[in-house]
């Protein structure tokens, strides 16, 4: 990527190498970006990852199927429910378990609440990266309400471990549905509040429109999923394409963008929050009575084969690829397809040729979580 401008620079230009992170206020964890700068312009950006590598995939190979679930919590730590759900959905596919409708609906409620929580974290950090500090506190206030709901349901706020292969571990506590409904009713007005601060703000628009553009063709080629792909105008959502649990029974729209830039991805995510509340309303309405666990054996024994299952996590397609051996009680190989990992790969494509400040906007808009990238 060369700098736009006169063919031959007036002065000798020396590129400055800046190592961005792994300790830096804006890198969302321990991401490191090795940059070559020409003044403020990024000539080359190379993400360096692996500072949080804990060998989770190796650990999966040593533990029984149910014992894997708490470890999935720690992959994308702001988004535990989807990790649980992805693993459980995949295992149910492998074992041929079909879960009761009540369990499926409860899973959807938990997953959509978690999506809201995750998007709120994204909103907060994205805004802080671009210099608006106040939305952080407003979104975390609502996120705390969601975490309270989680805590009431399963006893944990962050690393939930709230699903089991074949259903759910707990029945709902008394009054939980009412509190959830109360939250869902109040939430859209809060979204309006956040949007007042940013959506129409001219500084916000200047910072995001036309920044981090990736064309639909490139987006597909780089394997983008989730909001970054939808921001590039491709209507694609695992919940619609390969519905799991009972997502085929609820109505919702898949928002898409047109300009393929950071602002569109911002709008897509904000709209996704609204759609999530819509799904939540329907789920709360339709929630049937019945058992919450399928009739699964206590000790799960797998057939031989490979299976891939995926869910639409707030970051993109979260997939689990499990290779099982005959009568095995633990996965022979369990690969996680982390959406953040694949999405981060297109960071150089998005930022090269733009300014340092745009790097922040793009890292924010990719919504990466390093726990998931490094695994």
């Amino acid at each position, binding site marked *: 990527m060369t700098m736009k401008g006169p063919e031959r620079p007036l002065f000798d230009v020396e590129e400055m190498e800046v190592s961005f992170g792994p300790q830096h206020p804006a890198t969302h964890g321990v991401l490191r970006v090795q940059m070559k700068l020409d003044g403020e312009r990024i000539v080359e950006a190379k993400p360096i990852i*692996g500072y949080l590598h804990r060998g989770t995939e190796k650990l999966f190979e040593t533990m029984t199927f149910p014992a894997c679930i708490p470890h999935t919590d720690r992959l994308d730590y702001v988004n535990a429910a989807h990790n649980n759900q992805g693993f459980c959905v995949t295992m149910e*596919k492998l074992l041929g378990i*079909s879960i009761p409708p009540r369990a499926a609906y409860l899973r959807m409620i938990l997953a959509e609440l978690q999506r809201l929580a995750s998007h709120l974290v994204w909103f907060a950090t994205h805004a802080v990266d671009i210099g608006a500090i106040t939305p952080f506190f407003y979104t975390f206030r609502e996120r705390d309400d969601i975490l309270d709901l989680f805590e009431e349901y399963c006893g944990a706020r962050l690393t939930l471990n709230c699903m089991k292969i074949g259903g759910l571990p707990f029945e709902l506590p008394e009054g939980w549905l009412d509190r959830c409904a109360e939250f869902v009713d109040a939430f859209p007005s809060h979204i309006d509040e956040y949007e007042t601060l940013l959506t129409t703000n001219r500084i916000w628009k200047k910072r995001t429109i036309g920044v981090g553009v990736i064309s639909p063709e490139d987006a597909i080629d780089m394997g983008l999923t989730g909001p970054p792909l939808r921001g590039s105008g491709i209507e694609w959502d695992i919940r619609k394409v390969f519905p799991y649990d009972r997502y085929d029974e609820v109505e919702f729209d898949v928002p898409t963008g047109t300009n393929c830039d950071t602002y569109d991805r911002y709008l897509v995510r904000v709209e996704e929050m609204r759609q999530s509340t819509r799904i939540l309303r329907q789920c709360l309405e339709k929630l049937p009575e019945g058992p919450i666990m399928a*009739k*699964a054996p206590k000790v799960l024994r797998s057939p031989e084969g490979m299976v891939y299952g995926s869910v639409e996590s707030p970051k993109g397609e979260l997939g689990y690829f499990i290779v099982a051996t005959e009568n095995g009680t633990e996965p022979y190989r369990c690969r996680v397809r982390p959406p953040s990992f694949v999405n981060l790969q*297109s960071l150089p494509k998005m930022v090269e040729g733009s300014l340092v400040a745009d790097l922040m906007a793009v890292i924010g808009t990719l919504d990466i979580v390093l726990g998931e990238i490094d695994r």
Partner: protein
Amino acid sequence: MSDDKPTPNIDDLVIDVEAEKAAKIAAAKAAAAKKAAEEASPKDPWEEKPVPPVHSDAADDDDVTALNGALEGSVVGADHFAGAVTVTVRAEKILDVCRFLKEERDYDFLVDQTAVDWPEREEGRFDLIYWLHRYSDSKRLRLRAIVGEDQTLESVAPVWGAANWMEREVYDLFGVVFENHPGLERILTWEGFNGHPLRKDFPVEGIDTGAAIYPDVYPSGGGPIQPDEGEGA
């Protein structure tokens, strides 16, 4: 057991072997009777015993036939399991197969690429897995290429940009070398790391890399039970 605590009810700790056996038999009988009664009435799928998916031949899948037609001898076998087709292809032909699938069959999205280690297997140690997606009809196809430990493989990064990091990861964690990769470096571990962590012969507890390892410290008499200590009786 200290004296100030309530002594445990002795009956709870006593196991009457004979009585236990009898109780077990009775319970099993009751369960069998209940099961027979339940089997008579129709049940919801989640009430029934789960039926695991089975393998079936997928040679007549249209992608497989197309592949066979265009690139003769590239397909070794095709298997259908749990709603997905796995096509085993020759490792030497992987780039041609991928290019064909992308250009002719519209598989323009590489969802995932990974590897599986089978150290004991004769055909070759590693399974390379490519998991493709087609947007037009949302079909997914899994390619499998078997690679030996000292074999290399053609990189598919020129076909799908997404393969770049995934191949780096496979190289890092399994040690499979990809040819013509734009920058095959370690990605999750560091350059110079001794070993490939996801191989089955890599110890789970890790290796001494020279970095400080802080051992677990336990109080005297605590800590994990050593094998020579014996696990109960």
